């Protein structure tokens, strides 16, 4: 039987994939080392995909014989993935130019990474999930090594690739076991198989749970599968890291949540395992971030801690099956915009092709560029979770779910972790507003940078102030 196919459901993904191809063709035709046409095609394509997503994002739907299942979470996550790629593509030209990265492959690769991320967001089929993760990862391996002259960049690419390939092995093995035990590739069948099977199949399913957790844990950079994160963040070009930390993570986060949702009924051990990873990630991420002088490593540990917060939501949904995904959606919304904003500011602060690598390099940023300085205040507050910013409200929602799911201890751990967060995030502000500047030259701000910062700042504050209209637009209560 031919499955019913809704082409419109895959249109946004398709557009992004085709954009990548078009961008590559344009790049080959023009051969322009400045890549301005390549960039324009990519930005336009991503924008089209955004528009189509917003226009068609009406109903939750499944298609392709339920290999594609677009629920609210999937739609919003796709939106966030495309949005982060869009902003990264928007601000990249001046950065690539300053870094003298003349490889036109950046934009097509970015588009394809986005394609992979979008696929991951929109499926509960393990095989499709795997394909999506691989498209995303392989593009990111290439992107990480984009700065050919730099040893750091190459090192980070090879490290990312080797560890990533290893993690993929775990994931695939887990998927195979799942199939072997249940005869299905659809995660959401896990629960019914669990309850209808004998102990042997249960062992297989438990093993597949463990292996898939390792694979997804790597992609989300949960502790103890996080070691690649600081090195890759440090070595890869900043614009690539900006995407890696936002669009590249959203898919993995959503997959983790879906995974927790599907397996949750199998027993308390699922929720507790994920909760354990969450606690480790929050504590290790936050504590190690406190000692960091290197900015990108600090942000890497911060993203590990944030992955911990996401894992908290996954643990919540695994332990109380009724939990809605609104908290995760809102949290991701804030996380993506905040993180993007921080990286855009870092790219702006670059001088002579070198972005600020240590906290000291940020000194006096506020006086060099007030726009960058004050946007950074908003982002840092959101990362700390302080004031009317999405980071605060996101945490409130996650905490509320955690209490609802009777995981009080997890809520306490999460709250106490924020204290460490306040320390090192505030360290960023201390440098930015430090009177002694490391460099007194004012920063010339380009139009795309201002636009991106405006989107991020407005999103971070606006999503709190205009909470109800925002959720209505996202199709949520």
């Amino acid at each position: 039987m031919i499955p019913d196919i809704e082409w419109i459901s895959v249109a946004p993904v398709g557009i992004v994939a085709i954009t990548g191809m078009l961008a590559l063709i344009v790049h080959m035709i023009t051969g322009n080392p400045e890549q301005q046409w390549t960039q324009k095609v990519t930005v336009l394509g991503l924008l089209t995909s955004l528009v189509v997503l917003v226009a068609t994002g009406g109903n939750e739907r499944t298609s392709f014989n339920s290999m594609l299942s677009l629920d609210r979470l999937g739609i919003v996550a796709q939106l966030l993935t495309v949005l982060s790629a869009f902003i990264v593509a928007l601000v990249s030209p001046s950065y690539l130019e300053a870094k003298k990265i003349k490889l036109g492959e950046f934009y097509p690769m970015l588009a394809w990474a986005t394609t992979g991320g979008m696929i991951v967001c929109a499926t509960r089929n393990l095989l499709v999930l795997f394909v999506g993760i691989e498209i995303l990862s392989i593009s990111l391996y290439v992107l990480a090594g984009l700065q050919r002259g730099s040893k750091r960049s190459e090192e980070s690419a090879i490290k990312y690739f080797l560890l990533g390939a290893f993690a993929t092995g775990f994931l695939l093995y887990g998927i195979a076991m799942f199939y072997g035990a249940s005869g299905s590739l659809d995660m959401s069948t896990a629960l019914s198989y669990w309850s209808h099977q004998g102990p042997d199949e249960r062992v297989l399913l438990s093993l597949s749970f463990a292996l898939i957790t390792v694979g997804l844990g790597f992609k989300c950079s949960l502790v103890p599968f996080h070691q690649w994160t600081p090195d890759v963040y440090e070595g890869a070009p900043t614009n690539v890291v900006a995407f890696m930390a936002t669009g590249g993570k959203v898919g993995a986060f959503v997959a983790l949540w879906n995974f927790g949702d599907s397996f949750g009924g199998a027993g308390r051990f699922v929720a507790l395992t994920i909760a354990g990873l969450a606690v480790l990630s929050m504590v290790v991420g936050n504590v190690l971030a406190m000692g960091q002088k290197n900015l990108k490593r600090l942000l890497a540990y911060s993203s590990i801690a944030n992955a911990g917060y996401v894992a908290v939501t996954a643990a919540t949904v695994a332990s109380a099956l009724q939990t809605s995904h609104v908290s995760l959606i809102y949290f991701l919304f804030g996380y993506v915009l905040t993180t993007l904003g921080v990286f855009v500011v870092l790219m702006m602060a670059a001088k002579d092709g070198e972005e600020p690598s240590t906290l000291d390099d940020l000194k006096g940023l506020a006086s060099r560029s007030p726009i960058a300085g004050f946007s950074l205040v908003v982002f840092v507050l959101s990362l700390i979770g302080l004031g009317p910013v999405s980071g605060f409200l996101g945490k409130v929602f996650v905490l509320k779910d955690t209490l609802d799911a009777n995981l009080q201890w997890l809520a306490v751990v999460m709250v106490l972790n924020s204290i460490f967060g306040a320390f090192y995030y505030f360290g960023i502000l201390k440098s930015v507003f430090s009177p002694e500047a490391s460099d007194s030259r004012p920063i010339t701000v380009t139009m795309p940078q201002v636009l991106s910062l405006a989107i991020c700042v407005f999103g971070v504050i606006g999503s709190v102030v205009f909470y109800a209209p925002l959720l209505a637009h996202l199709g949520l209560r």
Partner: protein
Amino acid sequence: MMVSLAIWLPILAGFLLLGFGRSLGSLAKSAASILMLGVLGVSVGLLAKFDSAAKGFQFSEKVDWIRSLGTSYSLGLDGISIWMFVLTAFLGLVAVLVSKPKERAGQFFGQILVLSGVLLGVFAALDLVLFYIFFELSLVPVAMLILGWGRGDRKRAATRYLAMLFGGSLLMLLAIIAVGVQYSAVTRTASMSIVDIQSVVASGKLWAGKEQLENLAFWGFLLAFLIKSPAVPGHSWLASTYESAPVGATIAGVVLKVGTYGLFRFCLPLFPHAAAANASFVTFLGVLGILYGGILAINQKNIFRVMVFSTISHVGFILIGLFSFSHVGMVGAAFQQFNHGLASAAVFVLLSFLMERGFTGEFSELGGLKRTMPVFASLFMIAMLANLGLPLTSGFVGEILAMMGSFESGYANVLGLNVGYAVAAGAGAILSASYMLYAYQRMFYGEAKSGESKDLNLNEMLIGGVFAAAIMVGGILPTFILQRMDQSVAVTGSAVKPNSGTTWAEGGGEIDASRIYAASSQGEFK
């Protein structure tokens, strides 16, 4: 609308100054002071319209905000908060007037304006989440002011300030969410409005069978507010903040008693059983603070540190008054938290004049100022006497009422309190006289040591004079203030009796008006 106006006007103007202040140059200060004058005008207008007989919140505003949490943008003032509201506006104006930042004036005044607006929000918020947002947000401008314009080891001071206060209040966030979850479990609706929550508390339903949760949530709030106040074990941030913060920031943001206000507004009415169960412990901390602060304040090397320990000692009086749960004591606490803001701000204002003349506040370089700066000396005397609680100054009223409340509950042997606490607090009052007068002696008598010591100019005299007048008026005619506090304190006081049925929505239970007035007038004329 007027309350919102008073809150958002300075915040928005502050952001404008932060962004474009540089182009304004020296006009920034005038712009900021005119704006704060307007805000003060609005808040005084609210005070004039305030109905002291009404029981609930006045000037209420409520707009739906986040349905799933039950959070609304909900503001209102009662007899306790209106005074803090007016005081905040006033101190914001004063902070602008006395500050002369050497660099980036636009940004400095921008921060002060944002700070004032946010603190106004703290005192007006009637929704737990909204309150928390304002409460936390108020930390940022103070930390930024310390970082950008502070003295000494400012990075350390700013970090300590932010980390201690932020860290202290994190468990409050968890408690807030827990209260919200419990509220929706009981009522099947979501609300974070303290009026709604308290009405379910008063009916005894919210915490029925959940005593442990009530106690934990109470501690979440208590911890945050005790550190913010600060009460003794959590006070170490205050020393570095007073020493490092620019005086304007101290006046606008630190002397205000947000912590004790929070105890008044949230801890007592929302967790009556837990508050009663822990009353003797908090009273103990209060007495400890009075004695500890009083003793340590005597032998400090620097006037700012004297103020640190005097603040801790004053907070002790607020705590014993509040947790006596007697009407007199609670009125005293409400009055004392207003007075403390006024009287210590007066000292800081005068100190800012001194620092402009090149002094740092170390006693080693002060002395003999009485001869060279007689006007300054007499204004400082008044401010100091208000701090030590001399009759006829506003400091006396709050302190004596708080102690009376503590005696009353102590004699009655309720809540595990006894007279010993009150007696010990009385000894603390003597300590305050000794450390204040000793500090005064070291500053104003003896040999003049260094610095230029020209007496106050007309502007400075005017500002100092306003404070002196306010202190005297507060001491001679406290009924003007007490009358407007009375009803609200009574509602809070009877709400804290478990299962009282007293709500903000419907107003208070029984109060013995004649007894209260007898008590307050004793305090007035003794």
